[in-house]
């Protein structure tokens, strides 16, 4: 076939009314979803920002001008210039370089929190929803207790107990972040529990564990993913807040919140020390929020 007709064939294949196989059906669905998503300019902007964060974190050593922790007191507190795009801090470190490396820390924190939190929430919610009765009541009361707490203050108290540091900040945030996932997963599971395909699986002799793990959990994933994306900004802000208070990442680590905290002393004359890390936090959180908002419109038709 010539080049001109190939894309059209692809499109016909991707928009087929009657998919020929399971894989084909998945492609058709993904294509339709992607088209709705791409029509939303704000969501697209969010996607670009998030991809930019990933790229910057991955390529930090290539993009950086300097070593993020190398001190040079001869050039301390220099304003933004061609050599130091975002200026230098009180120890003469290039702020642009530190922000690039800070992207790795931020990404590390959110990924760790999500990897800890999403499975716990998903599991608790699915088990509570599927089993019902006593198990449901107990698990949901525990969830309610955690939901009723102010998150940042609870995280503060946890960090106070565990001691400052980035690992403890991750643990503290995780301990306070899982309940919404359990709520969502439970709500989805209750809808799914009485559907025919679950009854069919049960009739085939599938154990409750198998049904929850292989039949219910995968279907809860899309709402959990939306929630994760919308939560990312909150996690980033909490982590930055802990860093700002001196309870998260410790110096000389180029964590954005800690960088703002350090820049606070120079805020009157050397505004750039605090301004640029804050701007970075802002852009990344906004990216996740825009993306999550768009994803919700696409993946969750109820909210449309």
């Amino acid at each position, binding site marked *: 076939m010539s080049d001109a007709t190939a894309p059209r064939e692809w499109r016909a294949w991707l928009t087929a009314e009657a998919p020929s196989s399971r894989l084909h059906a998945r492609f058709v669905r993904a294509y339709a979803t992607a088209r709705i998503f791409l029509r939303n300019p704000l969501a697209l902007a969010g996607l670009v920002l998030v991809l930019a964060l990933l790229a910057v974190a991955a390529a930090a050593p290539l993009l950086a001008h300097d070593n993020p922790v190398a001190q040079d007191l001869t050039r301390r507190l220099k304003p933004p210039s061609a050599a130091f795009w975002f200026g230098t801090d009180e120890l003469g470190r290039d702020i642009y370089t530190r922000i690039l490396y800070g992207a790795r820390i931020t990404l590390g924190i959110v990924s760790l929190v999500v990897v800890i939190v999403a499975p716990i929430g998903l599991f608790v919610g699915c088990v509570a929803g599927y089993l019902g009765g006593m198990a449901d009541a107990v698990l949901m*009361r525990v969830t309610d*207790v955690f939901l009723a*707490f102010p998150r*940042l203050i*609870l995280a*503060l108290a946890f960090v*106070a*107990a565990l001691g400052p540091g980035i690992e403890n900040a991750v643990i503290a945030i995780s301990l306070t972040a899982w309940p919404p996932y359990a709520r969502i997963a439970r709500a989805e599971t209750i809808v799914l529990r009485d559907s025919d395909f679950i009854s069919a699986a049960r009739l085939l002799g599938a154990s409750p564990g198998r049904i929850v793990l292989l039949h219910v959990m995968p279907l809860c994933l899309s709402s959990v993913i939306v929630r994760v994306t919308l939560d990312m900004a909150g996690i980033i802000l909490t982590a930055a807040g802990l860093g700002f208070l001196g309870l998260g990442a410790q110096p000389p680590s180029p964590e954005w919140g800690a960088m703002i905290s350090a820049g606070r002393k120079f805020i009157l004359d050397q505004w750039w020390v605090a301004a640029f890390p804050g701007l970075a936090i*802002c852009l990344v*959180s906004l990216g996740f929020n825009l993306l999550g908002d768009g994803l919700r419109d696409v993946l969750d038709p109820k909210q449309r």
Partner: protein
Amino acid sequence: MTSAVAAARKRPTPPAIKFAGGALRLLGTVALTFFGLLLVTFLIGRVVPIDPVLAAVGDRAPIEVYQRVRTELGLDQPLYVQFYRYAAAVLSGDLGRSVLTSNPVLTDIKRFFPATFELATVATVLGVALGIPLGVIAAARQNRFLDQVIRVLGLLGYSVPVFWLGLMGLVLFYVHLDLVAGPGRLDVAYEDLVETRTGVILLDSALAGNWEVFRNAFAHVILPASILGYFSLAYISRMTRSLMIEQLRQEYIVTARVKGLSEGRVIWRHALGNVMVPLITVVALSYANLLEGSVLTETVFAWPGIGQYITNSLLSVDMNAVLGGTIVVGAVFVGLNLFSDLLYRVFDPRAR
């Protein structure tokens, strides 16, 4: 299913009893939540890598003294006994003594709380006054340009680190433009000029009729309150928008339009009127969230409120103060949640 159950189902429960039942269940949940709060703070207190006995007797105390203090503090008892004592103490208002200020924690909190209350209240007033109209406008212009602008404005509110916005606000509005007063609640010259009655300076100075102090206090509160208020604006405008969109789809709206009512009347009177009840709960929730947001804002603005009390105590590992503050803020948080739930039940007949 037995016939007794079926018969019971046929007989409708009187609404008053149903309401009381719902309220009771709600109170039960709240009691349970508070129990959980106590349990968590207790466990955090146990996990702390500081030996409370050593903290009390010092490093050089002989082993007999150490043992005696340990027994006195009840630390040789099993955990559940310790928890029982802890819970009993907290419920009778004894949150322990702060190491930093050497006052009972409850006394400290009573002193710091009005400042937070003042800040959060002004912020909520601002958030409501701007957030609700913005949400209504966004809903009326759904998916058009203005809606997108308001949407981004709201999402930005969810994305900006509050402490950073506070710092930048101080630099811009205080240092460069000199529009507002700096950190703290009052200029030194105005301190202790009015008698403390409520602890809320805006109220105290108004009651005393000292408008100069009032103006100074207002100049101090307006910037931190605007920054906190932005976050409640983000939340309130978003919730208002989605509630309004739901209402604007209803048939009574079509009826109102067909009747020939002006669009303004349809939106601001008919639709918004029906959204008011859920909005009250939204406002109560955002108020609760501000308590939390105030922790970071107070640090930036040297605002002597409960958030600053908690963080200062944290940095000097004053655990009684931290946990006491956590309990109080948690209790207020739970209380506000309960309050909004009850309001909802009272005002919305469907929730009964």
